[in-house]
């Protein structure tokens, strides 16, 4: 199995960065997942073969890291921080608004596969909370209304 040209270039470079090739596993899993949407059995088997690891061993690693998933996500994965600093500034109301707007709950995907939602731990935006990430993009100083507006913008973008 070949991944995108962009990934293959990156993967080849990464192999030269470490004395032990297993070291490329975690970043490879994340960057492959970015391309495919989630980690498919085929992708897992491919990376395992390239790194001389068993599929079991690769699954062991996947199960540890919270950004890695073997289940499909939405095209826009909405990650709302509800940890203590964001909570103190109203993260619960923001999360409730996101749930209502999208019609889904924690770790669920909308039927059109456009959005998925997750309540996450601290994303390093404590002084600018409440905060969320959509895929890798940060959205901070949120109110429930602002969060709804941002999600509407993603919906509009996705339909264009």
């Amino acid at each position, binding site marked *: 199995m070949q991944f995108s040209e962009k990934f293959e270039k990156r993967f080849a470079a990464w192999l030269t960065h470490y004395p*032990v090739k297993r070291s490329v596993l975690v970043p490879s899993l994340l960057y492959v997942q970015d391309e495919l949407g989630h980690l498919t059995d085929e992708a897992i088997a491919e990376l395992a073969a390239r790194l001389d690891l068993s599929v079991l061993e690769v699954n062991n*690693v996947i199960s540890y890291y919270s950004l890695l998933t073997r289940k499909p996500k939405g095209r826009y994965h909405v990650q709302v921080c509800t*940890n*203590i600093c964001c909570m103190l*500034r109203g993260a619960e109301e923001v999360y409730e608004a996101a749930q209502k707007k999208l019609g889904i709950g924690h770790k669920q995907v909308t039927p059109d596969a456009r959005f998925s939602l997750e*309540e996450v731990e*601290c994303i*390093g935006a404590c*002084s600018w909370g409440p905060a969320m990430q959509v895929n890798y993009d940060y959205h901070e100083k949120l109110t429930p209304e602002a969060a709804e507006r941002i999600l509407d913008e993603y919906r509009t973008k996705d339909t264009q």
Partner: protein
Amino acid sequence: MADLVSHPDEVKVVSRRFGQGAANLDRYLELDGYKAIQKALAMGADAVINEVKASNLRGRGGAGFPTGMKWSFVPKQAAKPKYVLCNGDESEPGTCKDRLIFEQDPHSLIEGVMIAAFSINSHQGYIYLRGEYRYLIEIMERAVADAYARGFLGKNIFGSGYDLDIFVHSGAGAYEVGEESALMESLEGKRGVPRIRPPFPAVVGLYGGPTIINNAETLASVPHILLGGGEWFANLGTPKNGGTRLFSLSGCVNRPGVYELPLGYNLKKLIEEVGGGVWKGRKLKAVVPGGSSVPILKADECDVNLDFDSLMKIGTMLGSGGVIVLDDQTCVVRFLLRTISFYQHESCGWCIPCREGTDWLKKTLKRFHGGGGVAKDIDNLAYLGENMMGRTFCPLGDAAAMPVIGIVKKFREEFEAHLDGRPCPFEAKEASELVGARTE
């Protein structure tokens, strides 16, 4: 890009280039960039370590271990290659400062890693950033590529005969990976389960070789120390607590933000003057001064100086410098529940006291906050915490236990107010509906 704030009391060392486009290599050079490494190369490795020792720089990630001393533990002769790791896993709740260094002054981190590597004769450095920090990984990768293109990294840097490679490495979501040994396991391509210490990384670290691992802010401080002198840096702070540090101020304040202040700055002043005081006209109830893992302080304990030793003396820690402010409308039981939910989620599962203890604590607190608590639960919480302390491979167990022990001790009446099926005095929600109290 994150919002930058400022206050006249700030002493800008590590943040002195923020907001000035220093991610651009030419701009960085204009702002005294890559001068410190050249000075280091001329000084020699031993002199560099002595300068860092003289600065009284202590780890900015959480533990506050003296940096120069840590570097001096690396043996001069070693059978295996030596490494320098920049810990950019920043995941401690309340902490958002390394993010600004990656964003605003990435080259200062490269330069810090270079100086550290030179001081221990290492030829390979890795800058590990948490997976969520993708936009910062891109900035760091570009900065490293620019440094290579200019000949500052690679073979014979600055004509010194010294070779050094630095690579950027992405995580994939895990708080525990910020723990030094778990980070090394992750970098080696495995689950981030910690190693037992001793041996310490300085002797047996990455791939078994001697390794320096430092927090990003710690490493970013080093070039400034080399340029200004260890004594100058030490004198900015208090005895044995040198320099300035980035404080991440958050929670119930009018002006949250990241501020750089000298070690020893007063906590009450930070909240009232720098932070603009408690928001919404409310009163201060409590402060967690160093990230979620450190013991809580009541409002009347906040007239204290923010350095490692002063806070240790009163039973808490400077930690990551994440100052979290609670107002008088905050339920500490609910605050503790969300804190413990975090540790329960992030526990790697290796050690029984942490894996079972965090789970048990969370279940107890959830039932308690929902009105199902009995008096015995309150003492049980403290008992559980005490039995987790010091009984694990890594400090995550302690990090979960300390908030419990502290909050139960200092806010016992608030726990008692939740007994006998009474609703939480601060809100109407049941714990089972509470966001953040989900079971996985």
